C-alpha cells in the first residue's frame, strides 16, 4: 500500500525541510494521500476515535496530576479538592473517569469489528498482535487509574487483583509482596500505581505508532475482505474522504461521551468508591470496572484459584494467536454465513460473561459462567479452526469495486453482501 510518495513541496522552505527531515511528507503520505478502501463502513472509524480518546485521556490526566496527591491519607481528599476547588476540576475528573470507559467502549467495538471482518488474517497478523498488546496495556492502565482515588472499590479492587498473583506456585506470595511494596495494599502500592499509571499511556502511544505503521504497510481491511487490486478503482484518498467521515463519527462519539460526563457522570462508577479506603471494612460486593467484568467472570468460573488466573489471562492471550487459529482463507463474515452466526453467539457470550461478572456469585450464576467460559474458549480453540475446514464460503467479489457495484448497482445484485452488513448507520 505504501507506494511512492505523492508529496510535492510547494515552496523553498518546504523543499529545504523535505531534504533534511521529510516530516511533512510523512504526514502527507499517512493522512492525506494514503489510499483507503472506498467501501469502509462506520465500524472503521473507531481507530480514529481511539486515537482521539488516547489524546483526551493524556491531556486531562496531565492536568489532573497537577492537583492530585498520591498519598494514602490525602488521595481521596485531593480528588475532592479537584471536584470542589480547582477551576473546571469536576469537568476534568469526569472527562477522565468516563473517558476510560469510553476508551473501552471504542476498543471493544474496534476489536469485534476485527473479529467480524477477519482483520487479523494475513498479512495483518503483526498489526493485530500489536492491537492485543495495546489492549493489555489499556487494561493495566485502567486498573491502576481506578486505584488512585483511594476509595473503597479502589482499595479492594487493587487487593483482589494483586492477590491473584499469589496463586503462582512457590513465588506467588513473594511476588504479591513485591507488587504491594509491603505486606498489604498501602501507601507504597498507591505510589507505584500512580507512577505506572502515568507511564503506561505513553507506552500505549508508542505501540499505537507501531500499530499505525503496521497498518500503513499492509493497508486497511474492508467489509468485503478482499484485498485492494486497483488503487484507482478500489480506494479513495484519506483526505478528504476518511477525514470527513472519521470527523463525523468522532463528533457522534463525543455526543455519546458527553451524555455520560455531563448528565450521568457516576453511572459507570461504583457508589462505594465515594467511601474512603478502609482496610478494616470489606465492601459487601467487590466488583471491578465494567470493562473487566467478562474476564472477572472467567476468573471466578474456574474452581481453582490458579486455574482461574490462568484462564483469565489466557482469555486475552488467546487473541494474539487468532490469525493462526482461524483456518479460513476468507476474511469477511459477510461471505461466511456459518461463522457469522458463531460470531454473534460469541458477542452474546461475552456480554453474558460481563453481566455474570457483575453479579454476586451464586450456584446459578457460577453454573452459567462456566458454560459461557467453556464456550468462549471453544469458540477460539475448536470452532474457528474447524470452521475454516468445513464451511463453504459464499462467492467472493473479484475486487472492492465489484463489491460496491454489487451493493449499489442493482437491487437484484445486492445479494448477501448488503443483507449481511451488521450496520451501515454507525
Amino acid at each position: 500500500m505504501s507506494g511512492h510518495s505523492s508529496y510535492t513541496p510547494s515552496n523553498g522552505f518546504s523543499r529545504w525541510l523535505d531534504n533534511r527531515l521529510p516530516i511533512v511528507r510523512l504526514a502527507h503520505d499517512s493522512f492525506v494521500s494514503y489510499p483507503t478502501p472506498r467501501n469502509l463502513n462506520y465500524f472503521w472509524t473507531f481507530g480514529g476515535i481511539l486515537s482521539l480518546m488516547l489524546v483526551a485521556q493524556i491531556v486531562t490526566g496531565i492536568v489532573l496530576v497537577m492537583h492530585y496527591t498520591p498519598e494514602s491519607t490525602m488521595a481521596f481528599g485531593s480528588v475532592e479538592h479537584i471536584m470542589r476547588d480547582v477551576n473546571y476540576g469536576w469537568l476534568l475528573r469526569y472527562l477522565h473517569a468516563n473517558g476510560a470507559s469510553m476508551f473501552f467502549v471504542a476498543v471493544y467495538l474496534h476489536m469485534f469489528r476485527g473479529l467480524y471482518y477477519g482483520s487479523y488474517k494475513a498479512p495483518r497478523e503483526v498489526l493485530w498482535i500489536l492491537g492485543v498488546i495495546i489492549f493489555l496495556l489499556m487494561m493495566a492502565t485502567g486498573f491502576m487509574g481506578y486505584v488512585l482515588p483511594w476509595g473503597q472499590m479502589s482499595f479492594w479492587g487493587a487487593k483482589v487483583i494483586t492477590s491473584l498473583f499469589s496463586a503462582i506456585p512457590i513465588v506467588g506470595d513473594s511476588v504479591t509482596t513485591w507488587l504491594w511494596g509491603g505486606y498489604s495494599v498501602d501507601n507504597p502500592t498507591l505510589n507505584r500505581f500512580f507512577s505506572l499509571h502515568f507511564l503506561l499511556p505513553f507506552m500505549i502511544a508508542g505501540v499505537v505508532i507501531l500499530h499505525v505503521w503496521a497498518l500503513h504497510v499492509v493497508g486497511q481491511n474492508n467489509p468485503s475482505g478482499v484485498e485492494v487490486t486497483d488503487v484507482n478503482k478500489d480506494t479513495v484518498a484519506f483526505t478528504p474522504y476518511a477525514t470527513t467521515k472519521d470527523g463525523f463519527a468522532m463528533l457522534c462519539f463525543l455526543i455519546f461521551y458527553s451524555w455520560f460526563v455531563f448528565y450521568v457522570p457516576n453511572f459507570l462508577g461504583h457508589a462505594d468508591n465515594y467511601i474512603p479506603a478502609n482496610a478494616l471494612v470489606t465492601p459487601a460486593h467487590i466488583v471491578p470496572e465494567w470493562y473487566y467484568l467478562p474476564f472477572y467472570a472467567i476468573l471466578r468460573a474456574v474452581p481453582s484459584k490458579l486455574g482461574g488466573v490462568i484462564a483469565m489471562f489466557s482469555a486475552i492471550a488467546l487473541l494474539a494467536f487468532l490469525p493462526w487459529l482461524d483456518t479460513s482463507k476468507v476474511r469477511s463474515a459477510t461471505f461466511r454465513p456459518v461463522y457469522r452466526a458463531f460470531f454473534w453467539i460469541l458477542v452474546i457470550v461475552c456480554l453474558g460473561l460481563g453481566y455474570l461478572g457483575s453479579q454476586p456469585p451464586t450456584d446459578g450464576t457460577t453454573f452459567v459462567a462456566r458454560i459461557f467460559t467453556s464456550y468462549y474458549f471453544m469458540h477460539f480453540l475448536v470452532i474457528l479452526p474447524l470452521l475454516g475446514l468445513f464451511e463453504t464460503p459464499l462467492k467472493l467479489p473479484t475486487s472492492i469495486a465489484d463489491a460496491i457495484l454489487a451493493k449499489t448497482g442493482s437491487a437484484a445484485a445486492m445479494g448477501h453482501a448488503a443483507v449481511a452488513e451488521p450496520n451501515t448507520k454507525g
Partner: protein
Amino acid sequence: MLKIKIALFAGFVAVAGALSPATAQEAHHNLVPEKQNWSFSGPFGTYDHAQLQRGYRVFREVCSNCHSMKFMAFRNLADKGGPEFSESQVKALAAEYKIKDGPNDAGEMYERAGRASDYFPWTFANPEAAKAANGGALPPDMSVLAKARSFHRCDWFPCDVSNALLDVVTQYQEHGPDYIVGLLNGYATPPAGEEIAPGLNYNLVMPGNKIAMAKPLSDGQVDYTDGTPKTAVQYSRDVAAFLMWAAEPKLEERKKTGFRAMVFLILFATLMWFVKRRVWADVAH
C-alpha cells in the same frame, strides 16, 4: 438463520431460568426507596436554594451532632449553585462555632470564633471519640455521602439490566438522596420474632435492616421560618437535597455546561454530516 435465532432464544430463556432461582435464594427484605421529585434531576435541574438553606439547618441542628462534613467550608454556603446564603449570613453562621487554631507565637493552641474560610468542625476530637459516644459505631462523614449510597430497584435478570439502561437514558442519578429519604423514614418496629441487639435499630431500607443510628428526625424538631411544614418527611427531603449539594456542589454548573456542549456538538456534527455527504457525493461506496 431462523433455526439459529430460535436456538439463541432458547439459550437466553435457559440462562434467565438458571439465574432467577439463584437470585431468589438471597432475596433480602429491603424496602426499595421511593423515587422523590428533585429540583436538581434531569438535564436542566437546579438546586432549590431555599430547600438547601432548610437542609443546612437540619444538618446543623441534627446531623452534625454526630456526623462530620470535612470537605465543606462555611464559605461554600455562599457559593453560586448552593444554598446561596449572603456573605454576612455566612460570617455570622461561622462565628457561632469555636475553632481550634494555632500554634500561636507562644507555641500554644487556642480557640477563636469561626471564619468563612474554616471547614466545618466536627463535634468529636477524633473517630475514636465518635465511636465511644455512639455505641461503637462511627457516623460516616457526610461530604460525599449522597454519592456513596445507592440501591438496586430489582436484582433479577433482565430487570436489573433494563433498569440500568433506563437510568442512563432518563438520566436518573438521584439514587443517593432517594436512599437517604427512604432510610430516614424507614424506621419501623421489627417484625415479630426478629431480635434486635441493644444499640441497634430496625430500618426497612438499611441493608440488613439493622442500623446503629436511632431515628434522628421527628415532627417539629427543627424550626423553619419560611412556612414550610415542620414534618420529619419534609426535613428528610430537605437534608437529602442539602447532602446532594454537599456531594456534588458543581451540579448546576455541570448541567449548564453540558447543555452548551451538547448544542455545540450536535450542530458541529450536523455540519460535518453535510460536509461528509458532499465529499462522498461523487464516489460510489
